[in-house]
């Protein structure tokens, strides 16, 4: 579309580019700085000599963190959470999106079920009743507490149902002529045509699982069961002295607390950075479907 765009006068153009470059710098700086800190020596970090480049390069902080069984364990729990949680999220999303995408003549209770699910987005019992129900169902301190209560991402379901509805009806009708039932239409006709949006939603729920911290924090009593972000919350953000072992206390004095914090934060970011190129690729698709319906 550039052809029909008149160019800005050169000074305005320069200003525009400068401001955008500055904004990008402001976004990148805290992350780059954290990375630089994590590879710097304790004395350089404490002396405020680190900005965007490691000073007195060392991997000591990473060795300390990766030697910590509690950190490794919580990293493992987070990975497991993604591996187990994402397929469950996606299967339920698809199974609910299909009936909701039917016309109300084809599925007479469609309106009822659409509201049945939507109401839970609009209104909730609040934190305490939610917690009590999870306790009543025996999930406290169990890994499944991180998976089951949020297993149906309702908004994603609505997105997918809307997407299904946008697929030309003729394809389904042709399949139905050949005797295909609902399951066949869903699996053989709709799903193959929905791969990009399914990829988008998969990435989004994966990031969501990886980033969740609050449920782990309040649903797990034993810190040994914390996923990584809950672990970081208690170790890096709100350090609880009871959480530190004697080994930690002794070692922390050897290397700067600050560089270890940076290393832990950076390790927690790595999975996001790995999937980021894919996230970006599907980003526009996802957003266009989500916020700005045509």
């Amino acid at each position, binding site marked *: 579309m550039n052809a029909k765009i008149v160019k800005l006068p050169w000074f305005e153009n320069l200003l525009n580019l400068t401001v955008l470059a500055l904004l990008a710098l402001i976004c990148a700086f805290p992350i780059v700085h954290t990375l630089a800190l994590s590879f710097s020596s304790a004395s350089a970090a404490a002396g405020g000599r680190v900005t965007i480049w490691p000073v007195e390069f060392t991997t000591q902080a990473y060795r300390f963190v990766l030697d910590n069984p509690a950190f490794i364990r919580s990293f493992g729990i987070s990975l497991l959470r993604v591996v187990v949680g994402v397929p469950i999220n996606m299967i339920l999303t698809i199974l609910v999106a299909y*009936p909701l995408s039917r016309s109300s003549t084809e599925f007479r209770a469609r309106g009822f079920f*659409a509201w049945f699910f939507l109401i839970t987005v609009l209104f909730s019992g*609040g*934190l305490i009743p939610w917690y009590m129900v999870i306790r009543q169902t025996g999930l406290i301190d169990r890994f499944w507490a991180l998976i089951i209560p*949020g297993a149906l991402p309702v908004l994603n379901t609505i997105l997918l149902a809307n997407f299904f509805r946008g697929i030309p009806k003729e394809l389904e009708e042709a399949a139905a002529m050949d005797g295909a039932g609902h399951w066949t239409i869903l699996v053989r006709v709709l799903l193959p045509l929905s791969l990009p949006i399914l990829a988008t939603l998969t990435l989004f729920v994966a990031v969501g699982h990886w980033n969740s911290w609050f449920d782990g924090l309040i649903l797990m009593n034993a810190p040994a069961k914390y996923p990584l972000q809950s672990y*970081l919350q208690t170790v890096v*953000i709100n350090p609880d002295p009871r959480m530190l072992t004697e080994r930690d206390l002794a070692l922390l004095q050897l290397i700067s607390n600050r560089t270890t914090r940076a290393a832990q934060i950076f390790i927690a970011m790595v999975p996001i950075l790995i999937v980021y190129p894919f996230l970006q690729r599907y980003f526009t698709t996802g957003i266009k479907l989500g916020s700005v319906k045509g």
Partner: protein
Amino acid sequence: MSSKRKIWREIPLYTMLAPAVVLVLVYGYAPMVGIVMAFQRVLPGRGIFGSPWVGLDNFAFIVSMPNILQVLWNTVRIAGLKAVAGVVVPVAVALMLNNVTSQAFKRTVQTVIYLPHFLSWVILAGIFVDILSPSEGVVNLLLRQVGLRPIYFLGDDKIFPWTMVGTDIWKTFGFGAIVYLAALTDIDPTLYEAAVVDGASRRQQTRHVTLPGIAGTIIMLSTLSLGNILNAGFDQIFNLYSPIVYRTGDIIDTLVYRIGIVNYQYGVATAVGLFKSVVSLLLIGLAYKLAAKWADYRVF
């Protein structure tokens, strides 16, 4: 088709829905039943069936709390400021990106500014607590080098709300910008061509074609954010606040957390939560009505 055969044909649809329906009944609707705790003095171990009813005592207690109005005001203030900045900044950035002719530059900037959207507030709090620290944080070191006094971004209750707004914008503006940028690409290209024929400058194009083209999206998103006026951002504030900034930084959600999860006053915490849910629901209802009216928006 006869009604019997119709039901037959619908059975697979019910099968598909069944697991999710059970799940939502338990974890979505059962907590709504738990709201009755707002009218009980919840005793440990007795649950919602054994605890005594206390009528509106919990609500009376909330109203008598000395800081309740302050917390309510903090919530609305922080959420309101975020909502305003959350429209202005992304729209401005989207318009600026739209003016960029070099695709490589545009893509690079976009790549960098969306990234924070995908990082959790735990990670970001870890980063911000470090760089905003008055003693060793890099931001204050830079300020000192320019000869300014250090700013207590997270420790001064006059500054704390602004730190929340600023860091929230930092995290979300890139994502917001792409939403508006997506809306920009839907604008009919012939409008630009017509403007060129009429001799419009770049700035006039922006004013008379681009802005009106995304006005619908702007109105829709700002209206919908009305429903969030009691959501000042629990994840962010919980990870960045401390007792020294409670005066301006404590919000409804953090208060509920401390009353309920820390102090085990389930009845009171549920009552505060109920107040929030009801007000939010009313606002969401209003927002959707307005959005439907002004921007022709529908959920389904």
